[in-house]
């Protein structure tokens, strides 16, 4: 892979919990993201998976500096953007965009499709060739919508169509990186396939890089070049998609994969499922040592004391586990 579009080094995002009111005090800290290293190459799709509350959405939002990172570094095209102010970020915003999970909440119900898609031209003071209206209609056509619907309101569209509007908005300024935060999880399965294919086509055509946040492993398997598995704010395992799905080494990855249904009842019936006990521990007070030790079936004393280092066990396959699964 060529140069990286995005690189994270030890990214941390902690949310303080406060008492509120005029004399607000900090009560505790939610460690939503706690030391994530990650790299997205040009034109590559990196899938970020994990169960609800593991911090994958927070990673996506912190990458775009919608949240101020607590610690660590964010590099965009080699430039350190960690400390950039809101004002300094503005020129870079055109190159990194976001697609949201809920297509009903991510579009302002009071704006027309035209106003939504052209907002970025307005904000950045860009006058596109052939006029704003023409560009918006081109974008709508590009994402498979009727360009005549420019004056319609979001509520006049279906969920899949709305998600396409969100994609058109993200594409308006020709970004290099798109953070897709569970872009299909709110859609019907048949529509999911259409939107995933659209994202695929756009990538081929425009050379986009995706950071694809999802919890649906089959979608991730389909779209990603590489997959990052997160648990409680930390990266557990990272590998090429084929490698990870064929040869998961981390117990957590293995448990996740065993939850993916196989569309063959014969195999599905015979196969052994790994069912994790208990719930995700609170990120306010994560367990000592390996964060997965409370639910791991291979847990030993060492896991409760020593934090496993992230090691490259084979080329492009990194892992944070004291007792990885065998080959």
């Amino acid at each position: 892979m060529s140069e990286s579009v995005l690189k994270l080094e030890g990214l941390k995002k902690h949310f303080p919990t406060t008492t509120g009111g005029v004399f607000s005090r900090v009560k505790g800290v939610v460690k939503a993201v706690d030391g994530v290293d990650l790299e997205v190459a040009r034109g590559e799709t990196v899938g970020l998976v994990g169960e609800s509350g593991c911090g994958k959405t927070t990673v996506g939002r912190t990458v775009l500096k919608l949240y101020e990172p607590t610690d660590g570094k964010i590099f965009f095209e080699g430039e350190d953007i960690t400390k950039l102010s809101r004002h300094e970020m503005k020129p870079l915003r055109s190159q990194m965009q976001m697609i949201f999970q809920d297509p009903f909440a991510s579009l302002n119900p009071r704006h027309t499709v035209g106003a939504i898609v052209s907002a970025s031209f307005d904000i950045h003071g860009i006058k596109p060739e052939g006029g704003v209206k023409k560009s918006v209609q081109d974008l709508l056509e590009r994402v498979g919508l009727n360009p005549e619907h420019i004056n319609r309101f979001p509520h006049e569209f279906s969920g899949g169509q709305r998600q396409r509007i969100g994609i058109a908005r993200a594409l308006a300024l020709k970004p290099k990186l798109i953070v897709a935060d569970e872009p299909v999880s709110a859609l019907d399965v048949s529509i999911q396939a259409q939107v995933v294919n659209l994202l695929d086509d756009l990538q081929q055509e425009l050379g986009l890089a995706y950071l694809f946040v999802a919890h649906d492993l089959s979608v991730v398997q389909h779209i990603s070049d590489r997959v990052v598995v997160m648990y409680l704010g930390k990266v557990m395992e990272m590998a090429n998609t084929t490698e990870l799905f064929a040869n998961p080494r981390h117990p957590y990855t293995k448990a996740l994969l065993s939850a993916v249904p196989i569309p063959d009842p014969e195999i599905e019936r015979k196969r052994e499922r790994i069912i994790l006990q208990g719930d995700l521990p609170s990120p306010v007070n994560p367990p000592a040592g390996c964060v997965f030790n409370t639910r791991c079936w291979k847990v030993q004393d060492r896991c409760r004391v020593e934090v496993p280092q992230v090691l490259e066990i084979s080329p492009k396959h990194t892992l944070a586990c004291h007792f990885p699964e065998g080959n």
Partner: protein
Amino acid sequence: MVLRTPRQISWMRFKRNKAAVISGLVALFFILSAFLAPLITKLVGVNPTTTYTKALTQYGMPDGPWGGISLAHPLGVEPGAGRDLLALLLYGSRISFTVALITSVASIGLGMLIGITAGYFRGRVDAVIGRFSDFILAFPSTFMIVALSLPLVQRVEALHVAKDNGARIVVLIIFFVVFGWPGFARLVRSQALSMRERDFVMAAQALGASNWRIITKEILPNLWPTAIVFLSLSLPGFLSAEATFSFLGVGVQAPSATWGLVLSDAVTYWQTDPAYLIIPSAMLVIIVLALNLMGDGVRDALDPKADSR
């Protein structure tokens, strides 16, 4: 297919709502006739300051049934002084409408500004604004208006801003706005709080929009329906508040007349001259109802989800 702008679509929705259109016309009629009061009174041939003693009996009551309604005095005459009721109401409604409109718009504008600031910036800003508006709401406002209006009217007169009734109106408007904004600010604050967490606000941030743009372009348009409904409710509210304080001797005083002043005068005649009470009351009810129905219609027209319900 013909492409329509959002405004045209809203207007079409409004036109479809018959009740809203009719009440809108009624409200327009009242407001226009207040505006054109000098012209109308001239056409009818009456004057708000002339005392038509010939239309009164020897006991000072209107001559004839229904408060002395006749061709010369379409709504009858006032018992006692004998002024023409139509002229009184027309000129009175000018003051009432002006006070109600200025106070409504000003308190909603102030409430909107303060409410969005509190809701959008949250944290300490919100806490300070919240406690301050609690303080204003907990204030004994009616008592304060009655107690403080005289010195304040004198102060306004000393500043040569306005005189007599003008000064009283200015003081009344200031009081209404000062005590009127917290209610709307609270409503707006709660809406802004929920609005700022919506994904479309985050999308605007991801596009690099400034706080100002997010507040004015993303949050504010979603608050217009709230403001319009609140306006339609507070207009009649301030109309009657103005009447109340006129009655208490704080607002406009005779010989000028507002609806409230006419009504409070009419209460003393309710047994002997009921028409004098019924006519202004009916008008007040009609205008209040019309404003409310029109406000509802405007809200439905501005709400893009109105069709899908």
